[in-house]
């Protein structure tokens, strides 16, 4: 997804002279093609993310469309106040991209995990929050963010994520995409965990539980109309994300459900309210938090029993 991001932002820079790329000393050689388009529009802002975010706001308030890129914790929690004040309060159309989101960088330890980024950025007025499930959604999200005048946060994975979508799908910020029709369980999922979710849905299907799966690529604004349209008939709504159970997609959906008089019960799947102290790969970490395909299927079965 990182390579696709570098390619997409380069293509966008070719056709839109307002596009700038700010990197926090990351992406060795990844952005050489972008620099070839226009070296003046690439800024290596160094390992100084607070300053980078304010600089982006200053650029955006003067007609440019900066895309800020670094590892997720450093482009979100590290400079949250700069995002809040300089970007959101000023309604500066900055696009913030976090790479290696969720547990993508599991091996690097909790300093590099991001399991609270969607929760905190979702609280900021005007901020759009997007977690694409594959390179196609990421490219389309980036294009849509550039057309929008609101600040946008896009959390992406690292590399090798399988393609979920046909590249020609239609995409709109805040409009969920049904990936699989079903009748018993409604699974709403965000981000790069999607392959696990689809495999889990197949497992459940084999056990006689028909699962509908939707890509909720946009966490804010939440597609509450989709949920409303699809409420009746389902035994349960399940949200799945590679993010803490608190405050992300699960939090957003449960906030919406709490305003309804009747709704199916809601299961939130994500990581626990803890730091992961042991070392391990992303696969190991997903298994630990039961976010691997069988973990997801088992948790859903248990919830329904």
């Amino acid at each position, binding site marked *: 997804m990182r390579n696709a991001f570098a390619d997409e932002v380069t293509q966008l820079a070719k056709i839109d002279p307002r596009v*700038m790329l700010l990197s926090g000393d990351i992406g060795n050689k990844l952005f050489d093609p972008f620099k070839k388009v226009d070296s*003046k*529009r690439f*800024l290596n*802002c*160094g390992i*100084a993310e*607070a*300053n980078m*975010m*304010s*600089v*982006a*706001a*200053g*650029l*955006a*308030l*003067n*007609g*440019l469309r*900066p895309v800020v890129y670094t590892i997720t914790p450093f482009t979100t929690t590290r400079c949250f*106040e*700069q995002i809040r*004040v*300089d970007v959101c*309060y*000023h*309604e500066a159309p900055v696009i913030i991209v976090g790479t290696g989101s969720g547990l993508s960088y599991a091996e690097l330890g909790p300093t590099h995990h991001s399991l609270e980024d969607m929760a905190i950025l979702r609280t900021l007025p005007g901020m759009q929050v997007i977690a694409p499930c594959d390179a196609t959604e990421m490219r389309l999200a980036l294009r849509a963010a550039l057309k929008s005048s609101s600040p946008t946060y896009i959390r992406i994975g690292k590399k090798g994520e399988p393609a979920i979508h046909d590249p020609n799908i239609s995409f709109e910020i805040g409009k969920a995409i049904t990936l699989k029709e079903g009748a018993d369980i409604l699974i709403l999922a965000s981000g790069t965990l999607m392959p696990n979710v689809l495999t889990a849905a197949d497992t459940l299907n084999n056990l006689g539980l028909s699962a509908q799966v939707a890509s909720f690529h946009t966490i804010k604004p939440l597609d509450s109309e989709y949920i409303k349209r699809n409420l009746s008939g389902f035994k349960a709504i399940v949200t799945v994300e590679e993010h803490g159970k608190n405050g992300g997609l699960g939090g957003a959906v449960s906030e919406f459900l709490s305003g309804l008089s009747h709704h199916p019960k809601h299961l939130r799947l994500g990581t626990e309210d803890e730091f992961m102290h042991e070392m391990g790969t992303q696969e190991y970490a997903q298994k630990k938090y039961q976010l691997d395909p069988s973990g997801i299927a088992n948790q859903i079965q248990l919830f329904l029993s």
Partner: protein
Amino acid sequence: MLNQRQDLDLISQLQEHASQLRANIIETSSRAGLPHLGSCLSSVDLLTALYFHKLKIDPGNPHDPQRDRFILSKGHGVPALFQVLARRGFFPQSNLDHYGEDGGIFGEHPPTPSHLAGIEAATGSLGHGMPMGLGMALAARVNKLNYSVFAILGDGECNEGSIWECAMLSAAQKVNNFCVLIDFNKWQATDRSEEVMALNPLADKWKAFGWDAIEIDGHDYSQILDALSQFPSKTGKPLAIIANTIKGKGVSFMEDDNNWHYRIPTTEEVTLSKKELGVG
């Protein structure tokens, strides 16, 4: 000789503006209950020199893409900036009669640019304005425009790490259209700035960070104008003007007394201040 005569005329005009501005700031602080009076008064001469001499701005066309940008990075000094903007014609002076009223836009920190023409950044959280200014200075380069960006920083504000992050990136990017003026009044909210964070030697710090730095008396107009005339520099470096100032400057019983970071003057104190400033 003619030039010197012109300079003297200019300086006496600027001093007249500054006295009136100080009186207005003190009066408004008393009426609306606005704190940070000492911080406002130390920056008045820098603001006056910028707005009535240096900045390429047109109050009738406040969104002109070619305009110079000014950011009050020490946003708590906005009672001074609002008076300067009114006097410079960005909005009628009478608008400030409603300063501090519920539902208005004139508060203790600047509103966002979309809420008041003449404001470039809604500062207040320290260490944000200067980096936003760097973004604006870099935007000039990309957009092929010739404007400059000026920012006034507090010495207390130089505690913030983002100021020094910004200083390093500014130097690396050789933004010679970027000038910061440090209102070095030697106090921050609760203590002497030198004792809190060991700021000195401040000019040497900026030089070590790759900037040109000039140290001046921030209340002496010939020194302020001379420093500003050296900008944009020919060295390709951004410029830091370290302006040694006095908190509460202009009123004997406020000068260098940090109680006036929060104190609100009484009606009698306003009268005394105006008398000292020679403003009727």
